[in-house]
């Protein structure tokens, strides 16, 4: 390989066919005299602009598009040399760091010698060692192209905002499961908004047996094994549900607050009593109608109950998880859109309450397709206010444009699977921890189950990994009509 050009932080390196450099590979451009080296990542592989190639190709097709047939008597065997030159490639590389005295710096301001520099591949283990991507809480993400393992540190997810994105069936949910079980293994509390009911079986192996995490997985299905008694509810949480999920207007909300307080003071805070109170409310007819319709929405959700025995205490699960680590899976699969929002409002409100009162230290929240249940104002809340309370969110989506731009800008880690759509790539490339060229070029060519890991977990050295397999029961499979026929 030979250094050809440097423009800004882009290097162009001439590579010959036997050198086998591919997108995602890291190269070390070492200038021995300067005592420094550049670490660059291949983000695109192009044909080198070899003079005469066009003529070479054209003259093989002079006869109406069909290759002219013939024989080449090439006694000196020049043909392999022609092929060798023709197949030379130009590696477009992004400079990631400068290595000097075993120390890395993000600088790309110096110019290595074009004639004297040596260029060699930098193995991922060596890169990780140089970048000090190591820690006491390892999570093995998977294998890299050079058959080494990519291990990140669980603490690099702590206090961070993460995004897992990629098109359908590329392995996003699989990676989020891997992260979850790894975090649980380190006694972390994980809450999952499970839109498709595919995380409930995290405690089972592929063949249906209990695995080591079984006792730590708490699957809660709203209106089934997850109900809330009004008595357990804090007024703020209820108001949040009414205002944000059920869009209760301000005047009506004030009236509801008064009614709620009155019932609470009299020890009559039940669904039945609340319904009666709203019916007997002496106020504007519109206000009463508004409150009445919201009341019926709460009742019809099936999520609320008057029976304390029936009520599943989220708080209990959270406390249990606090001690041993665990995952609370909120199964939203069979829940309607409105009910989903009610449940999410409740859970988030409860989490904030628990974290504010230090009943919980911190929570890792995994939110799948969050746009389907997260209200507008929560996006900013999650990256600012809630992070300070100790809610560290991972968004999982196959529609990157549904995640707000501010989330991308503040994301600390991005786990990017394949995207082919330009628009999707555009959206993801807005993330501040990644350069648009890398995203566009590498993500487009990622095979299924391969993930481009970006951000703090890899010390800003984007690395492509084949996500390792997990012995977990799969629940997210698409139901197929022709499955048995084929």
């Amino acid at each position, binding site marked *: 390989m030979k250094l050809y050009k440097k423009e800004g932080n882009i290097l162009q390196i001439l590579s010959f066919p036997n050198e086998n450099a591919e997108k995602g590979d890291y190269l070390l451009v070492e200038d021995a005299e300067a005592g420094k080296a550049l670490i660059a990542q291949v983000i695109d592989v192009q044909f080198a602009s*070899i*003079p*005469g*190639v066009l*003529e*070479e190709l054209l*003259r093989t097709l*002079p*006869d109406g598009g069909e290759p*002219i*047939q*013939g*024989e*080449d*008597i*090439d*006694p*000196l065997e*020049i043909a392999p*040399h*022609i092929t*060798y*030159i*023709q197949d030379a490639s130009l590696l477009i590389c992004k400079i990631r760091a400068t290595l000097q005295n075993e120390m890395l710096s993000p600088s790309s301001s110096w110019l290595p010698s074009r004639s004297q520099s040596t260029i060699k591949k930098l193995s991922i283990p060596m890169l990780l060692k140089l970048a000090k991507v190591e820690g006491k809480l390892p999570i093995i993400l998977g294998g890299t192209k050079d058959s080494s393992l990519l291990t990140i540190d669980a603490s690099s997810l702590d206090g961070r905002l993460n995004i897992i994105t990629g098109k359908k069936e590329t392995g996003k949910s699989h990676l989020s499961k891997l992260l979850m079980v790894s975090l649980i293994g380190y006694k972390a509390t994980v809450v999952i908004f499970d839109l498709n009911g595919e995380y409930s079986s995290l405690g089972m192996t592929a063949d249906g047996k209990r695995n080591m995490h079984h006792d730590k997985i708490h699957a809660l299905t709203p209106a089934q094994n997850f109900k809330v008694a009004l008595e357990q509810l804090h007024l703020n949480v209820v108001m949040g549900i009414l205002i944000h999920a059920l869009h209760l207007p301000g005047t009506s909300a004030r009236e509801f607050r008064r009614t709620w307080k009155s019932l609470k003071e009299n020890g009559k805070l039940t669904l039945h009593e609340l319904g009666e109170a709203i019916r007997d409310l002496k106020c504007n007819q519109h206000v009463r109608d508004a409150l009445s319709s919201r009341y019926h929405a709460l009742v019809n959700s099936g999520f609320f109950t008057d029976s304390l025995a029936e009520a599943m205490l989220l708080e209990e699960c959270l406390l249990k998880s606090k001690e041993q680590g665990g995952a609370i899976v909120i199964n939203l699969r069979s829940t309607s859109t409105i009910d989903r929002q009610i449940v999410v409002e409740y859970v988030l409100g409860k989490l904030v309450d628990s974290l504010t009162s230090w009943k919980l230290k911190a929570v890792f929240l995994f939110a799948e397709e969050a746009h389907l249940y997260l209200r507008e104002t929560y996006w900013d809340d999650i990256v600012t206010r809630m992070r300070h309370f100790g809610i560290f969110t991972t968004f999982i989506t196959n529609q990157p444009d549904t995640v707000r731009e501010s989330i991308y800008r503040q994301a600390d880690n991005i786990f990017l699977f394949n995207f082919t759509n330009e628009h999707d790539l555009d959206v993801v490339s807005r993330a501040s921890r990644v350069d648009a060229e890398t995203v566009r070029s590498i993500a487009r060519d990622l095979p299924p189950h391969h993930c481009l890991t970006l951000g703090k977990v890899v010390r800003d050295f984007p690395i492509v990994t084949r996500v390792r397999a997990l012995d977990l029961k799969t629940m997210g499979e698409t139901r197929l009509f022709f499955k048995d026929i084929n």
Partner: protein
Amino acid sequence: MIEQYTITTTPKYNFPQPTIDTALPQRFLEQSLHSLKQVQPNAFQLNQQFQQFRTFEQHPSNLQLNRTPIPLKPNHQETIIAAIDTSTIKIGETSTGIIIAIRGATVWKQNRTYRYTRLGPFIFHITEENKNQVYNTLERAYFTTRCETPHQSAPHLMQMPTRLASLLERWLQTMIAKTVTNGLILLDGSLTAGTFDTPVHRMREILYQARKNRSTVLAFSKMTTLRVNGYLITDQLPNSEPPYLLETTGLRYKPPTILLGDVYVARLNKANYAFRLDIDRETTLSQRLEAVEKLAGNDLYTQSYPETLRLAHILCTFTANEVLAMQHFITRKHGIQIINRPDMHRLLFGPFGKGEIS
């Protein structure tokens, strides 16, 4: 001791093959390898610009052009058309000489299909010391099997590329003349003989072999310097429907240069281009017309130039990519260090130095 290298002949020719003499290409390969071995300790310098050498016409006198066209009626009777061309290029310099490459191509059209055979490239390191040996060895390889003629002295170093290419070209032409029967043989250039490149007996031999096999030799010149009344003969086209020929008379060269063909201007299609066409003088007018009519009826034309000959030219021409590959070969196989010699024009005159060629 020079090793013997086997050159396979052109087994894919689908017309009758007599015993083909392969002595010349064998000697080409031997001399090529031998000359490259001699260059080993030397540094190899890249050219600033590559030159592909072509030969040019000499100026004759008393030329007349008959502007009455001889109309042609394309004859679609299936006829083999074969064309030959060679090319040479200087690919670098050493402290003692030059490194050149030579390649030849024959293209033939039969059953509406074009096929080709390319021979080479042969790479030579030519120095003042070895030029005589290289040239004479190749000459001898050619002459010993033909007529015994005292070999000429080796040309000037800078003329060696064209002279060696001419040797290969004449050999290919001879082979085609011997193998093609009832066909048309298209040559690049004219039927002028008696020059250093083309001794009279060699051209006569080619024409003789072709006539013997009932083939006709047609030589097309891409460019001509022949003028009548101050105008190029190819620019004086009448307003007649092509295809047609215009006849010239009175063309004489100073001895020892002689013309073995009669010169025509050929306009073969509606494209407003015409070419100098030399046809074997020993053929009758009707044979000549039949040959050109068969050409018009059997070959494709791009801008009035036969496709078979165009392909031969395209296939033997060296591309920049091939030059790089040959430089790579020389470096890898013969360990010659490539260094860039500064362009003195650029060095001395900066942006005003345009290099040696332009």
